[in-house]
């Protein structure tokens, strides 16, 4: 079993130049730390910096100012130490399922047969052992996500970054993937940072929820609900209080209660 890793983000700013010539601060001086083995959800509205923070930790988006340290080492680019599952379907369509899972392992230096053997074990863990020789096009969207999960777990990256990975899936498929992901997380002890705009998803998965607003951290909430978190748990006073806090931060009530006459027909 491998363990997670600590992450330190200090003064992280990320400025983009818009086509209009204006600059946009996607991140504005973020300071935050993550403990080894934590499951943290970043929650916020679209365009407020959740994915930018995640990509900066991954090393895919360079910071304008500040620093990210993972396990004490400064992040300067993408690495096998920081696995990522994307919102889009990124499983390589030209590789069979087994070769997809073995891709990171081969990059790690494992021989073809070693990589295939580890990949097969992980395909069994995500219940796709019978599909190892299939092409990704032959799988459903949920099954392809399981391939992506098996791929990042197989590399033994101590930090896993997930950018709204289940956003495009139906509710039942998502529920089964929550179960799979939390199970793998408990067994492997990795640190997981998971971006979502779905408060319920965050309540099911996270130990800790960071509310991201205007490129900064608006709130840092601990979730101590026992697992597994069924619907009764999600209706508990603690869950309702967290939901209310997040809703207030994101100004969702204002969005819902538009004043009469505000909507132009």
């Amino acid at each position, binding site marked *: 079993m491998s363990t997670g890793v600590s992450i330190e983000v200090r003064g992280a700013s990320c400025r983009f130049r818009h086509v209009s010539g204006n600059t946009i601060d996607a991140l504005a001086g973020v300071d935050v730390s993550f403990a080894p083995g934590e499951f943290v959800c970043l929650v916020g509205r679209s365009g407020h910096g959740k994915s930018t923070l995640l990509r900066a930790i*991954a090393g*895919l988006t360079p910071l304008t100012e500040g620093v990210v340290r993972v396990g004490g080492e400064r992040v300067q*680019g*993408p*690495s*096998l130490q*920081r*696995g*990522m599952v*994307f919102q*889009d379907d*990124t499983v*390589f*369509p*030209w*590789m069979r399922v087994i070769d997809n899972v073995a*891709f*990171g392992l*081969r*990059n*790690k230096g494992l021989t073809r047969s070693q990589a295939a053997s580890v990949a097969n074990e992980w395909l069994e863990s995500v219940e796709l052992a019978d599909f190892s020789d299939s*092409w*990704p*096009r032959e799988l459903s969207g949920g099954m392809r996500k399981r391939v992506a999960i098996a*791929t*990042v777990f197989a*590399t033994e990256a101590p930090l896993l*970054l997930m950018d709204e990975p289940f956003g495009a899936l139906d509710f039942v498929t998502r529920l089964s993937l929550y179960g799979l992901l939390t199970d793998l997380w408990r067994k492997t002890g990795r640190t997981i940072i998971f971006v979502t705009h779905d408060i319920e998803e965050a309540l099911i998965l996270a130990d800790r929820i960071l509310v991201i607003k205007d490129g900064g951290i608006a709130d840092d909430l601990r979730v101590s609900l026992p697992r597994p978190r069924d619907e009764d748990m999600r209706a508990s006073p603690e869950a309702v209080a967290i939901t209310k806090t997040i809703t207030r931060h994101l100004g969702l009530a204002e969005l819902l209660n538009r004043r009469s006459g505000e909507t132009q027909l």
Partner: protein
Amino acid sequence: MPDLPRKLQAPFGVSSPSGAVTSTRRPARSGVALRSVFRIGIDAPLGRLLLSLIGLALTLGLWQLASELVGRYMPPPRAVLDNILGNLFESRRLNGLGLPDGGYMPHLLYTTWNVTLGVSIGVSIGVVTGLASWRWRLVDEITDPIITIFGTLPILVAAPFFLIWFGLVAFAQVSLVAFYAAVILHLYTLRAARNVDPRYRDYALTLGANDRALFRRIMVPAALPEVVGGIRIALAAAWGLAAIAELLGAQFGVGRVIVSLTAVYDVESIMALVLLLSGFAVLMDLLVLAGRAWATRWMPREGRPT
């Protein structure tokens, strides 16, 4: 259903006493082939085969008609077929024109070899320069104007230079084909590489891919279907280029034979050679298509290039 008009009762079937339609099969009619094609469906292999046969029959019919109208300089299909069978491996006609023994075949093989060699060299160069232009902006900036100029150069203007520089030997024809194939493949490869979705690159990088793995396991397979499309285009053009180079000056090859046959107005033999050359070109295209089917076997059927 006695109150309903007859049409609404059971248009293609027989009503049972309860009113349910027991058979919806339209009574089979003996009809023309075209009707059966539409019944089978244009996309079904049998339907496509039938349509191809109809097209072939129409062409042969028009050809026969034209030969009867034009006369001597438009020989009928039968005469051209006899010419092919009679001159493929041994030809008195060609011997009479001072061409070497062996009929049409050695010339066809010579031109086919020049095309294959020229396209292979051109594809190798074009793919490498295309990928280099994608990878290094400096290379792209340097090669872009050169490719633009060469890409617009008319073949009839370029061909004499190759013949003057390299002489009336196979090397001139091969290099002309290679030159054009390289230009086409450079453009196709560059476009294919730029079209590869950047999210695959990001995903591969987070999985520890180095430059070599990125290139070999991401860029090449992702760009391959489009590159094979370029190879098909280059190959289709190559037959014409090789023949033009031979027409302008060569000791051997289909173009050289056509020059000799034109001098004696032997239209029948020219048509026979042109048909044979087309047959070789179609065979080569089928080989490339088989290669592309293999390279795109991972794609959903509806997404594969046609």
